[in-house]
């Protein structure tokens, strides 16, 4: 590439970096201000000493702590169940012979074309009839299986030589043991990658939680943070709200930075949802 193009490219990258970073910086600076008055009077002034205590304060503002616990519990539970159902189904599709396999797999692929939003009214009535409105069950069980996960895990299982399974069978291992001990071990990277994605979908979900829960004790962070903003309207405590926003965003950012090698493009290609 010519040197002129290189200069233009560098300038462009600087511009994009500013656009990407500024919102985060603005959030962090605001979240470190000592009080609302400082937020309004000297907003660009990086506060010294920075008020890290805002993060603790935000967590203590009722009921932010409850939202955080609910988020962790529901996201971890749904991710765990999704992994189990995906391993079981992928194993059956890859290694077991049964009638109607192709048709059944097509039914799984069809689910990929059915986003939750397009059937939210009957879903609401089903959850209501089950008596699950405003319970953790409503936030976990419907997400205990995911077509995309089954598809991904199946693809990875297919790439593992069948000899492993045959050898295990000869050794006398049952299907459950092969699926959960041997296959899980061999497919570890893709299972971790998928688990991160599943966790992200649940951690970031707003729509479903908004509709299926109504009490403070069942709401999760994405809905909770919006409630926090609405409640305080008029006299928004921006320094606390930004501290809370940072607390909501931090876990996924930490997971991403520490497990970046699992964010390979193969997995990302299907990961546009959520």
């Amino acid at each position: 590439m010519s040197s002129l193009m290189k200069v233009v490219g560098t300038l462009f990258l600087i511009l994009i970096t500013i656009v990407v970073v500024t919102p985060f910086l603005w959030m962090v600076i605001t979240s470190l201000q000592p009080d609302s008055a400082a937020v309004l009077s000297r907003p660009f002034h990086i506060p010294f000493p920075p008020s890290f205590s805002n993060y603790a304060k935000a967590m203590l503002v009722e009921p932010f702590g409850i939202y955080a616990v609910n988020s962790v519990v529901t996201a971890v539970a749904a991710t765990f169940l999704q992994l189990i159902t995906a391993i079981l189904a992928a194993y059956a599709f890859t290694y077991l012979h049964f009638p109607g396999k192709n048709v059944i797999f097509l039914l799984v692929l069809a689910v990929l074309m059915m986003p939750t939003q397009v059937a939210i009214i009957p879903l609401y009535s089903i959850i209501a009839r089950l008596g699950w409105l405003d319970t953790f069950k409503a936030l976990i069980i419907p997400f205990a299986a995911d077509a995309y996960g089954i598809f991904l895990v199946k693809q990875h299982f297919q790439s593992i030589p069948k000899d492993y399974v045959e050898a295990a069978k000869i050794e006398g291992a049952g299907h459950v043991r092969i699926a959960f001990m041997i296959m899980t071990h061999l497919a570890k990277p893709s299972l971790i990658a998928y688990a991160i994605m599943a966790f992200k979908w649940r951690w970031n979900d707003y729509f479903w939680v908004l509709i299926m829960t109504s009490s403070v004790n069942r709401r999760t962070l994405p809905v909770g943070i919006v409630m926090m903003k609405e409640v305080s309207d008029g006299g928004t405590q921006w320094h606390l709200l930004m501290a809370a926003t940072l607390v909501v965003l931090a876990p996924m950012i930490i997971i991403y930075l520490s497990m970046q090698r699992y964010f390979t493009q193969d997995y990302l290609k299907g990961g546009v949802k959520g």
Partner: protein
Amino acid sequence: MRKGQLKKKYNRQEVITAFLFLLPMFSIFIVFKYVPLLDNIRISFTNWNLFSSTSKFIGLQNYINIFTSDMFWQVLGNTFFYTFWSTIISLGLGFLMAMALSHRKSKGANILRTLFFIPNITTASAVAILWMWIFDPDFGLSGQLFNLIGWESPRWLLTPGYAKWIIISLSVWRSIGYIMLIYTSGLSSISEEIYEAARIDGASTVQQVTRITIPLLAPTTYFLLLTTFIQAMQVFDIVAVMTGGGPYNSTNVINLYIYQTAFARFRAGSAAALSVILFLLLLMFTIVQRKVSQQRGKDYV
């Protein structure tokens, strides 16, 4: 190699195991995917109000009401406006970012790739609140910056002409990193020899991009175009949080309209009909995507 065995009857034990292995997944899909989708079509032909135990079959009345209401066409127009512009801008910027970073193997370039992807994993509703604070005309970043030059900041989210672009800007901010990443992997699959040959033939840098890079990236572009488009059609969180569809419905989109119709106005029948329309639109684009992917022989999901 297992052909002979396949011809034989199935092993009973194995079929039972397969059934048990597929049961958890299928129970979930039946209750929370297949049944709701079909039930939604039934509800769309009724005047159900979300709570009553009875509802009346009213045929196509909900659909007639929708197609004759100005509101629906406005909301559909808004949805396509948002979808079109956020897709085009994200793809354009993502492509340029991938191009600008290609051939740069320094540590700095890797840090930038990592950094640019971070917005993609953020919680939409939380960054929507951050966006409101940035564009707050009184004390937010916008208010402060305009204050510095002695002007008054526009009321971004209360002005119909601006509000939709603020929403699009957040969508673009969240998606460019993802698009850059997919384009980066597309770029890395183009062999350096092709460029070498073009240079020997005297092709300029611009010609190399327009004649080689862009055509060879076409499958990636089709994939990104359609998936981003389908994704954007379903936008809800950022609009619901930032504007709630306002001002004057100028930012109302179809998913939010469905939500309002069902859960604020309790017209579940009408909302179900809107959902059917959205589903058919999404299905249409998904089928196009599959067709294109198959023709191009790509293994995209």
